[in-house]
């Protein structure tokens, strides 16, 4: 094992925010090849913001993002496009193109970025849909699919070009526990079968315990990483009260109805 080449994503001293609001400060971490890396944190802690900055949707205020040894932020033109093709992104809503069938959604990246013969593309689409367990749904429109099926199609589309890394933003949001568990199982299988590296933003404890190899927890107050490690380690051994509260699903003291200070009250 070559230690250096084993690092597929390196985030160095990343700081980000919107307008006057600073959300993330000095975030640094590394993701290893083939692992399921999960970013956790409470609502408003900047999980999705971090993800959007790693995938290059927004430029960070400071810091660097390295994908497979190449700096995403300094890459331009064709080099950037080539780098972007090494990863796929699954958005929280699925973001499927509503005017296209399931098969057309999955096929779109193949049409745009490969010169595969038509027959091969058809077989690849068929293989992708098989992998995500949606054989037979090729001709359906996204509006005809359940939430869980839409997420699976979104994964198939994100995998269309056989990326090395998949980013998922809240994959289990809005799904029932059984469907969410099915999605977790799919992520584990994809990681095991094809060696895909996963970076997942979630606050679903069930998913974290089921699939995460390593997690980082973001702190909404400081905008920094509060804890990093294996889920079991953090759950069992972390002395940080915020981490303990997260893993044990405990409310923050002062936020129960009898204690909360309402916005607009005179003592605010």
């Amino acid at each position: 094992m070559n230690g250096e080449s084993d690092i597929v994503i390196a985030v160095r001293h990343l700081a980000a925010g919107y307008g006057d609001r600073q959300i993330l400060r000095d975030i640094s971490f590394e993701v290893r090849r083939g692992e399921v890396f999960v970013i956790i944190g409470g609502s408003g802690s900047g999980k999705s913001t971090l993800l959007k900055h790693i995938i290059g949707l927004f430029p960070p205020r400071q810091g660097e993002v390295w994908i497979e040894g190449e700096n995403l932020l300094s890459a331009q033109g064709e080099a950037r496009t080539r780098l972007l093709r090494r990863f796929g992104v699954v958005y929280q809503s699925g973001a499927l193109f509503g005017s296209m069938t399931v098969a057309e959604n999955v096929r779109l990246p193949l049409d745009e970025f490969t010169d595969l013969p038509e027959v091969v593309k058809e077989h690849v689409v068929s293989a992708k849909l098989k992998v995500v367990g949606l054989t037979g749904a090729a001709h359906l429109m996204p509006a005809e699919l359940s939430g869980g099926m839409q997420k699976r199609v979104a994964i198939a589309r994100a995998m269309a070009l056989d990326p090395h890394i998949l980013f998922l933003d809240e994959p289990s949001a809005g799904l029932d526990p059984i469907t969410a568990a099915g999605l977790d199982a799919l992520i584990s299988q994809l990681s095991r079968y094809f060696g895909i590296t996963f970076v997942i933003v979630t606050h679903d404890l069930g998913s974290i315990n089921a699939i995460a190899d390593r997690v980082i927890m973001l702190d909404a107050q400081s905008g920094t990483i509060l804890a990093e490690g294996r889920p079991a380690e953090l759950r069992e051994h972390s002395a940080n009260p915020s981490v303990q509260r997260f893993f044990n699903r405990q409310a923050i003291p002062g936020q129960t109805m009898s204690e909360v200070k309402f916005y607009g009250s005179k003592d605010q």
Partner: protein
Amino acid sequence: MTESPTTAVQTEVQAQEGGRVTVVLRGALDVQTMGGLWRELEARLRPLKAAALEVDATALRLCGGGGLALLRFLKTGGFTPMAKVTVRGLGEDLDQLLWLFADEDSEAAATERRRTPSLPEEVGTSVRASVRDLREQIAFLGKMAAELAGAMVHPERFRWREVKRLCITAGANALPIVSLLSLLVGLMIGFESAAPLAQFGAQIFIANMVGFGAVRELGPMMTAIMLAGRSGAAFAAEIGTMKVNEELAALTTMGLDPIRFLALQRVTAGMILTPLLTVYTMLAGMLGGTLVMLGLGFSISEIYNQMTASVHLHDIRFGLSKSIVFGAIFSGVGCLRGFQTGQGPIAVGVSATRAVVSSILLIILADTVFAAVGFLVS
């Protein structure tokens, strides 16, 4: 895992006695490397007429699952239709996945498409949709009339603040563009009519043409069509998005009628702002014609006298009456199309388009009726 994921895929084809062929695949197989490999295997395997094919995938790494397509094609005899195919070295999990995948009836799955309806079916579906649409329009019209009557009886329940907001966004904000376009159309009519009228020495009648046209036709029609494109489409998109986001369902389950809560204010705003904007359109159109006439050497007093002689109060009343009806049409149709929105973001776009097309059609239809009735009455 230590192997770089970009290692190119390699193949080795060994033909043995008795029609036995072995294909050894090595490296990382993904959609980028598969095209070349697919073509190479096709070129080398098809002529061999193999009786047995063994695919050795021990040193092959599937990246992302695209390579499964090739393995499945090999396993189902795509290149070697007469051969018994075995794939080894994939590992238990992937082997099972490939076995399940290869077992599926790919032809049946591929041909499972939507059936194209026949011509009579399409005609029938289209007629049914038109009848349903007409029924919905009539029901909506009746409901709106009832709600308007109800609002007059109980004006305290009417959301005037929302009407004011809509009048500002759909009306006041549209004033510059409506005025500019009307001015330009007034100029255009002036220029176009100047040459033919000059042949008869009757250029003074440009004032009649522009004044009469702006008050009776140009003003109400131009305003209504511009508002249909600008504000009617916005009403449809706004209500359509609310439907897609289940906000209409939330209103209904709260016991609030979406028509009373959303459409009533919009239609009222449409009926108030259209005649107001029409006044500006009339004035801007007449100003356009006046500018052309000033350029032709007529004096302001000549133009004024000619215009006031040709345009009467009942013409202005007629134009404004039409504009109230047109305002009700574009705002009502915009709301109706919004309520008829289907599922997904495309449905919102479809609703906005339908709102504009239906509004313009109905406005011109109504204008024709007004013209015919006006002619018969006069």
